[in-house]
């Protein structure tokens, strides 16, 4: 029960909780009410997009929505890739879909065993859902008492966590090449494309892998 998967999931949940506090603070500072801030974390439930939304919102909804939604589109790709991890039945799949985020997807796909994949997905998603929403509420209520996330190095935690979850998935040289190409595409597009586009465009790096894998399937 309290094995490595459990501990890792809880660790990510706690780290996310701290980050959620800074989301709450930032959101209220940007002019959103406590209720609006909490609804975002409960229903949109996609950290990076929420951050982008409240940081651009200072301008207008028309400016803030497209980048946030574009960035949220990566969850669609994740859900697509989690076909065997999500439950089949209609309403169960609808519930599972809500839990599809960066961390739960990466944790699931970092496991080799199908049962571990499902367990990693659920444990990480539930730990994050609890901590993300509690942290959001705390931050929204605390307001400007806390300093910027940079002071605590919070902005550096997630790349580190994602790297830890990515490494076990890199099982071959081809996949490593796809990962590096994905990072390269995203970085190249940062100065050129609008916010949200670079991360989405990195999926193009998977094309050679998909083509090769399909070719191996007997007709």
């Amino acid at each position, binding site marked *: 029960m309290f094995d490595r998967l459990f*501990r*890792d999931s809880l*660790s*990510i949940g706690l*780290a996310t909780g701290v980050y959620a506090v800074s989301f709450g603070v930032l959101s209220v500072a940007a*002019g959103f009410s406590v209720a*609006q801030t909490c*609804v*975002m974390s409960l229903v*949109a439930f996609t950290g990076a*997009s929420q951050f982008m939304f409240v940081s651009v919102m200072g301008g207008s*909804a028309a400016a803030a*929505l497209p980048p*946030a*939604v574009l960035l*949220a589109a*990566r*969850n*669609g790709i*994740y*859900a*697509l*890739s*989690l*076909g*065997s991890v*999500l439950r089949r039945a209609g309403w169960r*799949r609808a519930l*599972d*879909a*809500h839990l599809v985020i*960066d961390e739960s997807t*990466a944790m699931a*796909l970092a496991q080799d065993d199908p049962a571990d994949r499902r367990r990693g997905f659920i444990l990480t998603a539930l730990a994050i859902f609890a901590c993300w929403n509690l942290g959001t509420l705390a931050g929204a209520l605390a307001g400007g008492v806390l300093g910027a996330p940079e*002071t*605590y*190095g919070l*902005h*550096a*935690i*997630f*790349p*580190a*966590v994602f*790297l830890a979850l*990515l490494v076990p998935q890199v099982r071959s040289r081809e996949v490593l090449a796809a*990962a*590096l190409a*994905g*990072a390269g595409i*995203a970085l190249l597009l*940062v*100065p050129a494309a609008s916010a949200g586009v*670079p991360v989405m465009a*990195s*999926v193009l*790096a*998977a094309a050679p892998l*998909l083509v090769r894998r399909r070719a191996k*399937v007997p007709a």
Partner: protein
Amino acid sequence: MSWTAVLLLCAASYALKAGGAVLASRGGGVLEGRLDVLVVPVIAGLIAVQTFGDDKTLVLDGRAPALLVAAVLIWRRVPLLLVALAAGGTAALLHAVGA
């Protein structure tokens, strides 16, 4: 701030997740178990942007050394919580000294 914008974000976020989930179950046979390769480059892209991106420019600040520290610890198979704390600590330290 308007509720409309908040609710639009919520609706779009869920619709994108659900859309992927439905497509995955419809896709069935041929693609089943093959689409997981889509995730690796996207996560890699996310890491890259979160480490070097600052709005529309690329910058080298405390986050890159933090990721390097994390990479070494991951290679040494250090537990995830320590990896996260070490990365955050490195960035906080570098931020404090003004790097």
